[in-house]
């Protein structure tokens, strides 16, 4: 048994990591943190090479044909794995909730999409709800606040799972915001299509982060994290922004999001 997992899972699982396009491009450490957490929980992790993106940019822009093409590609790439895990509630929710509805006119594809949906999980809920992980071996000496990203919270019920695991991180204290469940204003393409409104929303979020008194802001979705980190840094805030998986995987000494390497 690997240190840090309070009880060994009964069966090691063959898990496919859905890296997500943002993590792949902008913050690979989140993917490696996810691999570490899953392996420590007894899983065998594989990264299917033909994955790209879950299709949300097309889906939420009304381009259903492209969405279906990408979804079919994802369904192919992740066939046969016991579980598909994404370090993102937004991409996880896309796979777990939205794919089957894309194929209402194609029963065979709909069945495959439903099969994938049933195997798809967001990382925190997979660790806690499926694998029964209750603690991790990690240390992080700071007060943190946790933003509940919308899709994870409302589509997948991710709320207590990350908090529960954070509770086992040594040196860490959790200071809740007044409204951790209010959207940060990212919304994928929303933030560049309606920058003024998005800015007002993320401005409120950064004020809420500040009043929590926490030195670190965590969340489970890189899109939201980049949005909030970018705003906090533009405002000159010293709050560090990280993905929750990085802290749980004891990778909290990496430069924070938007922080130069070699600085701490």
């Amino acid at each position, binding site marked *: 048994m690997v240190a840090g997992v309070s009880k060994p899972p009964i069966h090691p699982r063959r898990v496919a990591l859905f890296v997500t396009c943002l993590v792949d491009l*902008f913050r690979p450490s989140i993917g490696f943190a996810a691999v570490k957490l899953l392996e420590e929980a007894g899983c065998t992790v594989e*990264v299917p*090479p033909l994955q790209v993106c879950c299709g949300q940019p*097309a889906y939420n822009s009304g381009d259903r044909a492209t969405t279906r093409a990408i979804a079919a590609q994802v369904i192919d790439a992740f066939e046969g794995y016991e579980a598909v895990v994404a370090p993102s509630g937004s991409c996880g929710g896309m796979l777990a909730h939205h794919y089957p509805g894309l194929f209402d006119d194609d029963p065979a594809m709909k069945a495959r999409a439903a099969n994938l949906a049933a195997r798809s999980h967001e990382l925190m809920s997979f660790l806690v709800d499926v694998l029964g992980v209750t603690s991790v071996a990690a240390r992080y000496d700071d007060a943190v606040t946790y933003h509940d990203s919308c899709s994870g919270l409302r589509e997948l019920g991710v709320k207590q799972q990350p908090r529960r695991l954070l509770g086992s991180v040594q040196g860490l204290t959790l200071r809740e915001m007044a409204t951790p469940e*209010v959207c940060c204003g990212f919304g994928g393409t*929303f933030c560049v299509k*309606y920058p003024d409104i998005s800015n007002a*929303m993320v401005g409120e979020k950064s004020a809420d982060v500040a009043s929590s008194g926490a030195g670190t802001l965590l969340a489970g979705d890189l899109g939201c994290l980049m949005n909030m980190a*970018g705003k906090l840094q533009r405002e000159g805030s010293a709050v560090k922004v990280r993905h929750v998986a990085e802290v749980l995987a004891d990778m909290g000494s990496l430069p924070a999001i938007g922080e130069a390497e070699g*600085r701490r």
Partner: protein
Amino acid sequence: MQSTARDFKHNAGAALADANLQDSLAKLKVGFSERRRQAAERLPEFEALRDAARDIKNHALAHLDFYLEEFERKVTALGGHVHWAPTAEDARRIITELCRSVGARTIAKSKSMISEEIGINAHLEAAGIAPIETDLGEYIIQLRHEPPSHIIAPAVHLTKDQVAGTFVEHHGPLGFTRRLTERQDLVAEARHVLRQKFLDADVGLTGANFLVAETGSSMLVTNEGNADLSNTLPKMHIVLASIEKVIPTLEDAAVLLRVLARSATGQESSTYTTINTGPRRTGDLDGPAHYHVVILDNGRSSVLGTEMQDMLRCIRCGACMNHCPVYGAIGGHAYGWVYPGPIGSVLTPQLIGVEEASNLPNASTFCGRCESVCPVRIPLPGLMRHWREREFERHLTPKGVRQGLALWGFLARRPKLYRRVTGWANRVLALFGRGEGRYASLPLAAGWTRFRDFPAPPAGGTFHAQWARHGGARTRP
């Protein structure tokens, strides 16, 4: 009402810069959602009631023709009249003719969003008939010549001090010259001024929360009691409602009322619930001699049986806007037409055309908070997405967005090419961002970097490049 939905972005910018509006919105955001949360928590069966409410509305919509005809039959049997208005123009004409038939000079109006939808006030004024809004919020905005900014709190965009200023300006000539500072004093003054208007009115025009097919009743909830004066004092009562307001029974109404008030204001029940069933009967102490119900379609029936039908379940509680972070940032006027917030972003394209309202279903992060509080579980983000799909099909999506999507879609369907492109982008962004760890400005990303820094990726390559490099590419056997 004239739409400015086309100017949504401009409207939103102005709203964000309006300090009074931002003051008002700050209070709304906390107040409504907290009261709704507490009300829902106090009622253990609240979630089950939401399911029941959804099912009642779905059933009524599935048999809408039957229940509407049943409603008409009952109203007629009671001595009232039902008028069918396929369009807003029909509804305006019918109401104006009814008012003329009793020689009306003033009419007392109780709050009705449908009356805003058909723009009845301007039409009546042009016909020489003075409509007087009697809901306090509606009264305030009528004095100010503004449209409502919220479906249950029409003047929620105003501060108390702005209301005081409006009253001094309009009540001054009636002898009320003191600028008031207390909320209850403002209410008392409006009540005093309005009392005579109720007594003078020839016609009462109200909306309806529900039309009950079983009994031919129209039901109305208010917190001010103004509807009761509007429909009992004048000699004619006109109910203006849209087709989807009909429900089968009074028992169904009881279920819907229980979720309505809690979702809207956090009350267990609205202060006044009025059931109007026909004109005054022999021996009744009060009530109108003439009772008319004008039932408006205005494009709604074309939604029946389509993927958009769920929007017709709406019972107009306002919870979606109270919980919407976009509404909370810009208020109701920015949406540019009668119905703001998430439900407005779904209804408005249907009612005035998706070309005019194309921005509305796009101006959402799909955070899903609206759906999570909707008492009849309307899948609001899903319906907004359907509108986006229709816009895309009809090439209404902005050209830049379409081109960007096309390029991205081309790459996303070619994983190997995608890897090369992202590998290159990752290296460039990491290289030039390594000094600060972020970008204060980036070409092609001005929408982002105008307000935020853009985090640079750390050196080392994409996840997939690193995974392959470290021999981790343990693909399935």
